[in-house]
């Protein structure tokens, strides 16, 4: 064995371009784009955060619930008579909104039932046997495999026309063409951006209202805080858990519709994975178990990773998200707003 000295170190160059000018030039455009993705992350994050708040469980299969939502709204559009051509349909504003709502309903139905089914098949038997948290995690991973592989291999074998699933992305149905509506500080705002941010905000605020103001929300909070005491007070824990999964699933379905509006070419069996992890990051970032935290974390993550993708180069977009997560957890281990769902209001 011969040990040589390092002769040619000059060839080792970094591929990080530190470009603050691009951030300065495109600041508002980047912010708006970041908010668009961020609001989608936020909607998925609410699903993670609610389930974690109530069950102390990272529902790793939630990204697959989101992925099924993408397929659900796609099937909805197919049932409405759209054919996947890749071209944009011109249906008029009113009809487009109706179609979007119907497709969204299909996505929400698929996602919601997938989430509830997941709870029923995978988590409920474990709860009955009082399993350890790690068992729940492994089950979640297992269900994640099952759902992905179902869409990957089983779905294309079913006699459905046009075929669904498989290893390549579904042919695109493009319902809304991005049209510039107005400008903020010189940054164009597209109709898609408006649809995504406004509907995400409405849904997130509605969920927040429901958690904090309604009887059902108080039930969820009580189970999160102390399941036994809640049971003594007449709250059905199983019912609350089911509803929690349902809410998370429905929001993931809505997020799936919004995401496919923005990125219509990504309906594929692994399409939920990275987005799911990022949404979970968003939930942790804001303080897991905290619905407002999930919203804040999602928006923050979307914006920060968009800035990072310009400053450091687009290939570092995901790295920014994870580094941000590690930094926040180092200095605030319970997230920005802290855990809340399980805490009593005094």
């Amino acid at each position, binding site marked *: 064995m011969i040990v040589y000295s390092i002769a040619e170190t000059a060839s080792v160059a970094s*591929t990080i371009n530190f470009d603050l000018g691009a951030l300065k030039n495109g600041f508002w455009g980047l912010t708006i784009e970041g908010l668009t993705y961020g609001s989608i992350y936020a909607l998925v994050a609410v699903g993670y955060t609610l389930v974690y708040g109530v069950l102390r469980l990272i529902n790793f299969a939630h990204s697959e619930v989101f992925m099924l939502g993408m397929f659900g709204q796609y099937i909805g559009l197919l049932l409405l008579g759209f054919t996947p051509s890749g071209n944009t349909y011109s249906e008029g504003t009113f009809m487009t909104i109706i179609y979007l709502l119907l497709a969204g309903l299909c996505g929400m139905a698929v996602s919601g039932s997938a989430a509830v089914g997941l709870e029923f098949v995978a988590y409920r038997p474990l709860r009955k046997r009082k399993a350890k948290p790690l068992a729940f995690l492994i*089950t979640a991973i297992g269900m994640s495999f099952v759902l992905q592989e179902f869409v990957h*291999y089983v779905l294309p074998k079913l006699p459905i026309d046009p075929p669904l699933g498989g290893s390549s992305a579904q042919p695109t149905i493009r319902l809304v063409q991005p049209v510039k509506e107005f400008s903020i500080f010189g940054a164009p705002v597209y109709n898609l951006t408006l649809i995504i941010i406004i509907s995400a905000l409405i849904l997130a605020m509605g969920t927040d209202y429901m958690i904090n103001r309604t009887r059902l929300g108080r039930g969820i909070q009580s189970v999160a805080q102390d399941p036994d005491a809640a049971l003594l007070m007449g709250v059905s824990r199983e019912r609350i858990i089911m509803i929690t999964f349902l809410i998370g699933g429905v929001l993931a379905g809505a997020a799936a519709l919004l995401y496919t509006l923005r990125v219509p070419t990504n309906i594929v069996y692994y399409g939920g994975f990275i987005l799911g992890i990022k949404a979970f990051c968003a939930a942790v970032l804001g303080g897991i178990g905290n619905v407002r935290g999930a919203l804040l974390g999602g928006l923050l993550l979307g914006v920060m990773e968009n800035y990072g993708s310009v400053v450091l180069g687009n290939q570092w977009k995901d790295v920014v998200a994870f580094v941000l997560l590690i930094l926040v957890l180092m200095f605030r281990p319970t997230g920005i707003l802290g855990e809340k769902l399980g805490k009593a209001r005094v």
Partner: protein
Amino acid sequence: MNSSAAKDPNAPKPRGIGDAIRTWWNGLPRVMQWLVGVPAIIVIGLLPVVNPPIITTTATDFGVVMATFAMTALIAIGLNVVVGQTGLLDLGYVGFYAVGAYVVALMTSPASPLWNSTNHGIFSGPWAWLACVPLAIVITGITGVILGTPTLRVRGDYLAIVTLGFGEIVRLLADNLSDVTNGASGLQAVLFPEVGQNDAHPDGVFSSANNAGVLNYGVWWYWLGIVLVILVLIIIGNLERSRVGRSWVAIREDEDAAEIMGVPTFKYKLWAFVIGAGIGGLSGAVYAGQVQYVDPKAFTVINSMLFLCAVVLGGQGNKLGVIAGAFLIVYLPARVQGIEVGGQSLSEFKYLFFGIALVVLMIFRPQGLFPARARLVTFGRRIYGAVKRAPAATTPHGEEASA
């Protein structure tokens, strides 16, 4: 003394086949343990040479599958230190594996920036791979310190997510630092131990060019893997019986209680992390040498989860159990490959069945196939029994039996 322990109603009853084997093994004298253990290892080592009819994989070479198994067994043992022994949920273990593999690749691959045409890599020659292995272990250990120092203060699920993020960061760095790691195209022609050269195998028996016949490169890597696994098992076994191992179990059972009883939990968690990382680096180095090619695709989060599944499937905290788990996750998908049922290739559904198996197993046997004996709980029960019996010891035996 022994006879009274056997009758002790508080003594834990042997449960399942794992405990039965363990009791039998611990009951054997040292000489018998050698006499039984060595032939057993030789039989296991000869499996890919003999190619037993039902066990042998059809689509892939059995030796290569077994080599992959040996490597995964190393990973499972390392991850078991972190997850099974210490109870730290690490979802980014593949990051350490990647670091180990990339250290070897960067030191020896012609595609690496450290390589030049006159001197070749930093290391070259027949023993270059071996020289890289300690380096890989040390560097991954340092990576473990770098990741562990800031993050081991967060607990439970948060730690899981932070480590998941770490694993992804390592993969993305490997993918994107294209001037160093050659990006997605990876580093080719990684060196391997060049021993046993002859006319038939000009690059030695460990070269992937040695692919024909019974003694192909897979078998050689498998044997090397077995040696490494046994070495690591001896080291880890000694650690487990030491103060360090007892601290790990104490942290796993109740971190707060351990801290209050004077166990420096952070220090021992960091130890677990570093030792686990080092073993991950070792297996990464074995991987890099075996496939002679390293690219980011091998280090996804999915693989990390698979490694975790090996540990949980086998039984966390049980070293031989996690080796069995590693065998299952490597062997079963390879076994069904190439088998067709009703015109339908089974290998397509391997992860579907794998996922279902995980769920079913967790529901019906959450401790894994070979659960670890809860050593501390056992001792605790014995102490409880001893304390309770202490006053009764002065009274006649008949009374104690009636009580």
